[in-house]
C-alpha cells in the first residue's frame, strides 16, 4: 500500500492520531501535497456516502473529519495558499429562532472536508446576517441554511428570500433540516436540498462547480 493509500485508509477509519504522521511520511516520500489532500477529500466523500446510506453513523463521520483536519494541519505549510478551500467559501447557519446546532455542525464538517472554506454563523441567525456574511467574505459559492423545527420553517423561507432578493450573486443556496423536504426547498426558492450531512457535501460540491 502506498503512503497516500495509507493516508486515505486511515482518514476513512478516523485514526486522528495516526494520520498526521502518515501525511508527513507521504510528504517525505516525495508525494505532491495537493495529491495527498485530494486523497483525503476522496476519503471523506466515501465517508459521506456511507453515512447517507446508513452504513456508518455520526461518531464514525466525526472521527474521520477530525482525522482529515489533523492531516490538513500537517499539509497546510506545503500547499499553495492555504490549499483547503479550492471550491470556494460556504456560509452556513441555523436560521432565526432555531438553536439546533448539531446537524448544522455535521453538515459544516462534511462540506469543509469536501474542500470549502467555512464561515459558520452559528445558530439563531437572522436573514440579514446571512446576506451580510455573503458581502463580507470572498468567493462565496454556497450558502447553507438549516432549520430543525416545523415552527422555524417560515424563517428558513425568509432567509432564502432575503438572500435571493439581496441582488448578490455567484453563489447557490442549499437548505436542510429535519422537517425540510425537496418539495419545500423548491417551493421557497432554494437551489438545492440535502437530507443528511453526507449528501449536503455532495450537493454543495455539485452546485459550486456547476
Amino acid at each position: 500500500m502506498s503512503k497516500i493509500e495509507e493516508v486515505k485508509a486511515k482518514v476513512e477509519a478516523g485514526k486522528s492520531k495516526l494520520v498526521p504522521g502518515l501525511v508527513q511520511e507521504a510528504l517525505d516520500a516525495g508525494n505532491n501535497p495537493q495529491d495527498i489532500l485530494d486523497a483525503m477529500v476522496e476519503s471523506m466523500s466515501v465517508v459521506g456516502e456511507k453515512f447517507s446510506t446508513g452504513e456508518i453513523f455520526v461518531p464514525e463521520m466525526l472521527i474521520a473529519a477530525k482525522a482529515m483536519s489533523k492531516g490538513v494541519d500537517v499539509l497546510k505549510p506545503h500547499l499553495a495558499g492555504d490549499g483547503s478551500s479550492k471550491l470556494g467559501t460556504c456560509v452556513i447557519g441555523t436560521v432565526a429562532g432555531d438553536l439546533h446546532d448539531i446537524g448544522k455542525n455535521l453538515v459544516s464538517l462534511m462540506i469543509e472536508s469536501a474542500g470549502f472554506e467555512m464561515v459558520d454563523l452559528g445558530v439563531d441567525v437572522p436573514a440579514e446576517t446571512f446576506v451580510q456574511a455573503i458581502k463580507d467574505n470572498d468567493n462565496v459559492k454556497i450558502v447553507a441554511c438549516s432549520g430543525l423545527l416545523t415552527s422555524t420553517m417560515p424563517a428558513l423561507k425568509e432567509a432564502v428570500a432575503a438572500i435571493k432578493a439581496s441582488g448578490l450573486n455567484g453563489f447557490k443556496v442549499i437548505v436542510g433540516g429535519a422537517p425540510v423536504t425537496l418539495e419545500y426547498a423548491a417551493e421557497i426558492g432554494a437551489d438545492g436540498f440535502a437530507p443528511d450531512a453526507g449528501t449536503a457535501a455532495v450537493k454543495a460540491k455539485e452546485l459550486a462547480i456547476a
Partner: protein
Amino acid sequence: MLTKRQNLAEVMKGGNPDRFVKQYEAFAMMMRTPITRIKPPIGGEIVNEWGVTIRWPEGQLGAFPVHDAEHIVIKDITKWRDYVKAPAVEFSEKAWAVAVADAVAVDRNDQYVTVFVAPGIFEEVHYLMSMEEALMAYYEEPEAMHELIDYIVKFEMKMAKEFIDHLHPDALFHHDDWGSQINSFISPAMFEEFFVPAYKKIYGYYKDNGVELIVHHSDSYAANLVPAMIEMGIDIWQGVMTTNHVPELIKEYGPKITFMGDIDSGVIDFPGWTQENIAQKVETACRRCGKLYFIPGASQGMNVSSFAGVYEATDEEIDRMSKEMF
C-alpha cells in the same frame, strides 16, 4: 369496560382491548418528587444538579445545554472525575410527603403510578460534554466513557431505590433520545457495548423491585435498536416516529414490545394547528398500526403539547377512531 390500566395490559399482551389506549391516559405521572430533575422556565437559565447550564430561550420548544468553553462541564474526558459529581438523592420523609400523597391518590386499578426519569444516560453524557465530543469519545476514549457511564448508572440505581422505597411505582417512564429522525446516533454495535449493559442493570433493578412496566422515550428513528430495547427490558417504546415504519415493527416484534407514537409531533403540533390535520394523522396511524401492541399518540415525551389544545385534540381523534374500529 376495561379500566385504562387493564386496557393497556390487553394491548400489550395481544389480548382483547375494548378501545385504543389514549396517549398517556394509563400513566399517573409522579412529577412532584424531591428527586425530579429541575429544568429552566421558558426564557430562563439554570445550572442543574450536575452543574450543566441549561437555557430555555423565549420562543423555543425546549431547553438547551450550554456548551461553550466557559460552561461545558467535562473539559477533558480522561479527567472526568475532576469535573463530575452526581447529585444527592437522599431526602427526608417530609420532602417526599407531597409525592407520596400523589401516589396514594391514584387508583392503581385504573392507572399505573409512574415515576419519571430524564435525561437518560446517553443524554446525560452529552449534556456534560457536548454531543460531538461525546460521540468521538466513544471511539477515542472508550475506557473513560465506560467509567463515566458506570458512574451515571450508579446514580440512576440510587435514584431508583428512592423512588421504589417511597412510591412503590407500577411503571417507569424513562427518557433517552437515541437518534435523529433518520437514524440512530450510534451504531447498534456501539449501543450494545456502551448502553445495553447499563440499561439492563437499571431496568432490571426496577423490575426486580415490583415495577411492572418500563416505558422508554426516544422520539427518533431507532428501529435498528429494537432488539436491544427488548434485551434491556423495555415494554413500551414511546415516541416512535413514522420514519421507523411502525406497522413493520409491530409485525416483527409485537408480542415482545409495544410501540407508542406513529404520529410525529412536528406535523400536528405547530402554530395554526388544525383539528382536521390531527384527525387525518391519527386515523392514518390507527388504521395502519392496528389494535394490538400499539398506542396511538404524539411523539412528544410527556402528556402535553407545545401549542395549546393539540394534546386534547389528539385525544378526541383517538376516541373517534376507537368508536370506528372497536
